[in-house]
């Protein structure tokens, strides 16, 4: 690669005549304001439940909501990258399960050291992402197909590898503390991990080439390619990064359950994708925010929690969640102005 000079070294033969542009307001500030306001839907939902139930605003319950958000939330972080490219990742749910199972194999069956096992789990996630990425970019499969296939393969392999039995970590000292311990007193590590992961994801999305190219590819893949970005290679990188989050979700899940449950996972992908989309990320690609994803995941978990705490019958909960999602997203769109 030639080193690009940041300042173009061409010189014009004379200063171009200045032309008046007429700015009416500053766009930058507006964006910042938006990011703050993005909480609005969540805040309204929170406020509502706080009034509706005296138990809702208890720290124990809030902790419960956060804990319930953690696993899906981490998956949703990864999914955000794929969705930013205009793709979709259906393999996050069962992929997460496979990572749990493999962590179990490393730690419980093979007795590897904790760190190695955890890194192994992450590596399996990265591998899943890598394969997705290769299928999408080099075989040019539609992401839906590539990740649907991976979703099935991961589900099958989880069962095969575990012998359709849970793998327990009871013998692996300290593994459950990964999620249940409280490095920050009062805050379970699983939640801490989620927040740290969110910060890393946020920086990766907005400040690294991986994130930038993900957004560019989602915005206009052809233009990005013609601009000299090796789109295929970067897609592989992006899917691999997404896979890492899947791996992390798998490890956290395993730690929380202190076991790897091979039958779990199906359906989590929809929850994760829903969190991303509720957060304002467009499935068409090009627009994505990690903060949005975190809020989206929190909205989903808060809704479920709040309706349960109000003892709404199960069958009505679904109806209510559906309607609230429509309202929340619609309100959010109104707030952002009719870009749609």
């Amino acid at each position, binding site marked *: *690669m*030639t*080193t*690009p*000079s*940041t*300042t*173009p*070294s*061409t*010189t*014009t*033969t004379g200063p*171009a*005549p*200045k*032309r*008046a*542009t*007429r*700015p*009416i*307001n*500053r*766009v*930058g500030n507006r964006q910042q304001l938006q990011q703050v306001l993005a909480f609005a839907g969540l805040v309204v939902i929170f406020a509502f439940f706080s009034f509706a139930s005296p138990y809702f605003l208890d720290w124990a319950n809030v902790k419960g909501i956060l804990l319930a958000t953690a696993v899906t939330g981490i998956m949703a972080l990864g999914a955000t990258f794929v969705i930013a490219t205009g793709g979709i990742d259906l393999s996050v749910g069962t992929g997460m399960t496979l990572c749990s199972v493999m962590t179990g194999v490393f730690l419980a069956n093979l007795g590897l050291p904790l760190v190695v096992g955890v890194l192994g789990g992450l590596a399996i996630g990265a591998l899943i992402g890598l394969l997705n990425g290769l299928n999408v970019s080099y075989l040019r499969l539609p992401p839906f197909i590539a990740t649907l296939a991976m979703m099935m393969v991961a589900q099958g392999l989880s069962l095969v590898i575990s012998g359709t039995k849970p793998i327990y970590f009871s013998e692996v000292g300290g593994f459950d503390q990964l999620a249940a311990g409280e490095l920050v007193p009062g805050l379970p590590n699983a939640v801490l991990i989620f927040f740290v992961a969110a910060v890393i994801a946020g*920086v990766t999305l907005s*400040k*690294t*080439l991986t994130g*930038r*190219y993900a*957004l*560019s590819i989602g*915005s*206009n893949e*052809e*233009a*990005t*390619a*013609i*601009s*000299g*970005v*090796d*789109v*295929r*290679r970067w897609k592989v990188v992006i899917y691999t990064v997404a896979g890492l989050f899947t791996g992390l979700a798998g490890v956290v899940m395993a730690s929380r359950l202190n076991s790897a449950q091979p039958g779990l996972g199906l359906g989590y992908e929809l929850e994760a994708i829903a969190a991303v989309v509720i957060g304002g990320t467009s499935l068409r690609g*090009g*627009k994505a925010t990690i903060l949005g994803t975190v809020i989206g995941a929190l909205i989903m978990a808060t809704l479920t929690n709040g309706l349960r705490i109000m003892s709404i019958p199960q069958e009505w909960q679904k109806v209510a969640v559906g309607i609230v999602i429509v309202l929340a997203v619609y309100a959010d769109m109104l707030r952002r102005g009719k870009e749609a």
Partner: protein
Amino acid sequence: MSDPALLRATGISKSFPGVLALDDVHLDLRPGEVLALVGENGAGKSTLLKLLSGIYRPDAGTMELDGAPMSPAGPRQANELGISVIHQEFHLMPDLTVAQNIFIGREPRRTGLIRDDELVRRATALFGRLGIPLDPRQPVSHLSVAGQQMVEIAKALSFDARVLIMDEPTAALTETEVATLFRIVRDFVSPRTGVIYVSHRMDEIKEISDRITVLRDGRYVDTLPTASTETRDVIAAMVGRQLETGVRPDPAAASDATGREVVLAVRGLSTRKLLKDVSFELHRGEILGFAGLMGAGRTEVARAIIGADRSTGVVEVRGKPVTVRNPADAVRHGIGYLSEDRKRYGLLLDQDVVRNVMLSSLPGMTRAGFVRDGDGRRAATEMVDRLSIRTPSVTQTARNLSGGNQQKVVLAKWLVRDCDVLIVDEPTRGIDVGAKDEIYGLLTSLAAQGKSIIVISSELPEVLRLADRIVVMCEGRVTGTLAGVDANQHDIMELATRFGADRSLVKTGDPA
């Protein structure tokens, strides 16, 4: 001059977040005339036309058709009123066929079922009448930009329109198609019809229009009779000062680059679809022009070189054969390509100017793996200045820029990337006269600094003005190379129409 205008707009204002695009503008179109609408990039021309065609609603002002007030609620209603528009940006459905595109919303049906055969028949008849050589059954995604432009033209003329509005219809066309278009326009104009014609090409305006309305910075400046107005005065009205344009630099000043190092050599480049054995050399500091008719294969050559399409043949960079599998490889070898299709291959429409300008240069704008947005913002600000990009701020979304300013953003991206070899395909498409001159100056000075540039252009004056040597193509083959100094339009057209014995394309217009 008090006869009722065919179409009149008075006191029109329109603002967008951050921009006052139109401020108390008027315009009147008389029956039987071609009214040219001119102004710099971002002056508000397209916005005005979108108001007339019902896409936007004015903030203030009135519009009249035949003396009766009108306010079209949408494009469809405008069509029904007899206003037919060719927009600057294409509005085509790439997956549908040409015929389906033209008659969208007006499909002939029998017992509820669409009659595609009838659709094709009508399209064929329309093309026959207009003299446009297109296959109505072809999906639009298979067409080049020029082809798409012809579809838009055909579509606009398929309505029973009284007012035909054309927003830079020739930006993507070569002279032959321009001639076809002008014939179509002349055929269209009758005592009950009129045409509003937007273009940055002054010679075209001179040729086709009766009067010229000038906008500057969102405001109405003047309306001038074409016949009695000098082009330089029109330009002066546009930019607000006198400007020397279209002047070819002193031939003596153009140094002979052919003796210098060959930075890019292409040998025997062929593609399955079109190119046959294309070979040429590009020297250090040279501007090499590529001329040819629509579909001659100039764009294909560029795409093949940068690895965007598959091809056979050898590409050598500084004497060494290189494998270029994709545009990323090309950039790695110092070859950048600015596409003729800015919407499809140039812009991230939903992202801001900074991100667009940074795109090709991102790896160089990082420290320890993190993107330094400050660098991007600085580069973008500098480019906005240097190329006079009219935008409220560098954080404006590319989609909201005017066509010409979008083109400048794409150009800025490549200027920031600073490649040794820059292939620019229709670089001044949609760019106004003043800015065009600045860009010519820019390209020339780049070459003077030792960069090598390939200019593909359908505007022969542009090629003639810029190029040290001119490669002329026809039907995927190189039919000749001319030295810039002694080339003229006639020689180029001669070569550009040197078809193989098997096929011939009847010339419709006289290449001016």
